[in-house]
């Protein structure tokens, strides 16, 4: 087959795909609220980011219960359709497209920034509001008008952990940095960490690059330990980060470790076990926040999970659905969803989301016109493992 033929076939397939996409776009149809007001979520429930997706799923379930317990969307229940991204970009793209074609009014997700940079443009092109519950990389809301997030970006939170490390051990001089070079979150966050270190006069003595699916880090650790660091700063996800911490400690590193948002989950406990102890992480959520919204969330989570402490990702996912639910209630009062075309309702919902102020488990939040979250309080926690090293908690540092 000649190149010309191949190009012809390729163009034909592309045209068919585009036509199929247009044919299934329900934007011009009325909003279908017969079985409830449809909202979609795309989470990493399988694959290497599944540990986050599982935390987020619980948050969405609790928020859904809360919203529907409070009357749903003016008497009509909120209906949530959940899809798995499989922790990768093609999976996230396919799940976004499926949800949009189903006629959802808004989307929550995807779990990772890496996936968001791939899937969010689909929602932006199709005019579907997205509230990201856990994307912290720089540039997410900038994808377009329809993209917002309730997860504060790394540049706001990450430096707090460095400041805290210096408060605990003011004489720190030699910082070693690790990050996963094939992950958008990790590469964005390490830039912020490295700038924060330089601002504090702590030029990294070594920067080690890993890959998201790595499990063995002996080479990078050996190279880093040769530089005799007294502070190690990680921008990694939970599984690779947990393994790296364990191997660091097993190979004799005794200094402070600061980790970024990717390790901000109790799912690291079974991986690094007793070696997680002492890990410093800046957080956007504290279970100790004394507000009515957090008290209600905390109680709901503990009732569902036998008294466990909710992780940040659960609180943020809860917040994302809470924001969409409250915005839908306001929109439906002002401009009833029933009878509106889906395209118009989606655009009006995005405007409503951006206009609101929300009392959430994260504290009071609102949005910039670009969709960036404005949150007033952040925290730094230190992991404290139980004596057996099987479970632990994020202890808030005052």
């Amino acid at each position, binding site marked *: 087959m000649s190149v010309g033929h191949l190009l012809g076939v390729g163009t034909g397939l592309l045209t068919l795909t585009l036509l199929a996409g247009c044919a299934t776009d329900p934007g011009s149809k009325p909003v279908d609220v017969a079985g409830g007001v449809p909202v979609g979520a795309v989470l990493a429930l399988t*694959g290497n980011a599944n540990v986050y997706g599982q935390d987020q799923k619980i948050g969405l379930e609790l928020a859904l219960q809360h919203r529907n317990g409070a009357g749903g969307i003016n008497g009509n229940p909120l209906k949530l359709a959940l899809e798995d991204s499989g922790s990768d970009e093609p999976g996230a793209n396919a799940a976004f497209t499926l949800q949009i074609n189903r006629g959802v009014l808004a989307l929550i997700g995807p779990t990772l920034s890496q996936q968001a940079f791939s899937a969010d443009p689909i929602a932006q092109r199709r005019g579907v509001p997205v509230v990201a519950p856990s994307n912290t990389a720089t540039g997410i809301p900038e994808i377009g008008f329809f993209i917002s997030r309730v997860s504060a970006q790394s540049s706001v939170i990450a430096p707090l952990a460095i400041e805290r490390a210096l408060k605990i051990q003011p004489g720190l001089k030699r910082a070693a940095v690790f990050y996963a070079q094939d992950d958008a979150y990790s590469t964005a966050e390490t830039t912020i960490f490295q700038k924060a270190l330089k601002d504090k006069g702590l030029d990294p003595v070594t920067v080690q690059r890993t890959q998201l699916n790595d499990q063995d880090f002996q*080479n990078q650790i050996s190279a880093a330990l040769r530089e005799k660091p007294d502070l190690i700063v990680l921008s990694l996800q939970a599984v690779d980060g947990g*393994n790296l911490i364990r191997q660091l400690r097993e190979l004799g590193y005794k200094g402070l470790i600061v980790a970024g948002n990717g390790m901000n989950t109790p799912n690291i406990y079974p991986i690094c076990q007793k070696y997680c102890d002492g890990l410093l992480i800046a957080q956007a959520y504290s279970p100790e926040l004394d507000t009515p919204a957090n008290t209600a969330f905390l109680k709901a989570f503990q009732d569902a999970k036998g008294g466990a402490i909710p992780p940040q990702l659960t609180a943020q996912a809860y917040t994302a659905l809470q924001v969409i639910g409250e915005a839908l209630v306001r929109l439906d009062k002002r401009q009833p969803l029933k009878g509106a075309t889906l395209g118009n309702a989606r655009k009006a919902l995005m405007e409503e989301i951006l206009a609101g102020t929300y009392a959430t488990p994260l504290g009071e939040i609102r949005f910039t016109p670009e969709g960036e979250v404005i949150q007033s309080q952040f925290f730094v926690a230190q992991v404290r493992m139980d004596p057996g090293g099987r479970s632990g908690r994020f202890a808030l540092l005052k």
Partner: protein
Amino acid sequence: MDLLQILVNGLSVGAVYGLFALGYTLVFSVLGVINFAHGAVFTLGAYFTYLLIGGAVGANGLLAGFQLPFALPFWGALPLAGLGAALVALLVERVAFRPLRRRRADPLLALITSLGAGVILVNLIQLLVGAESYAIPTGALGGLPASFPLLGARVRTVQALLLGIAVLLLALLTLWLEGSRNGKGLQAVAEDAETAQLLGIDSTAMVRLAFGLSGFLAGVAGGLVGLSVSIAGPYFGIGYGLKGLAVLVLGGLGSVPGAVLGGLIVGLAEAFVPADWSGYKDAVSYGFLFLVLLLRPRGLLGRPLPTKV
């Protein structure tokens, strides 16, 4: 000191690759096809080990909260996990390979059926125990230290054990292949199954033996890797599966010592990647494989293909 540290790192990682590729090699030597379900059997070995030492299933999956009523020490759990994995490998042979072999189907089809069996196994794991990560407790090796010094280098105890066990298994396997009736029978089937059958060797039994051994090795490797790092969900064998394939080809298709040699070489190639470039170690190791195959297409210890006239 740096060189020794790099050697230690490379050999310990390479031992895992070699152990994994041994299982591929055994099946390839008798059937001439690659068993793509091997990675899933390896994964199962890790989960079996975790359960046998008393680990509990997490909050997701049909078996949420399940825990065996007993807890074995790691060294007791590991061979049992290997046996469990061997049984699963035999099941894979029965379901995905034997029906095709009986119909004398194109061996290429077995690649697809084994891939299907692997996908089903991985999904079954997820259905039963969820997708979360599990880890074998750091204290599973009893009073052994987490690491020890060696001539200025620092070695994780579990990595030294991995290297030792891989070498031991290779030695035992070589002795068994060369010194036992079944081992020689397996080699005869690998050489020419039809001639072996005419000589009175039950080739079907030899194929089963190859699958059982392959599954056992995968199960033990899975348990050891689970101890060394963590069981990062049902998919964690996939990466090792890909690397195992590279090792298999590098060492020479069907060569037992080639599998171990290939594993150690790939491990060392990765370890010698400068630290600043360590994020590209896969590219370096696969590039190295590419170069070796250009110069020696049958792999390092593979036999030349017979010339057909």
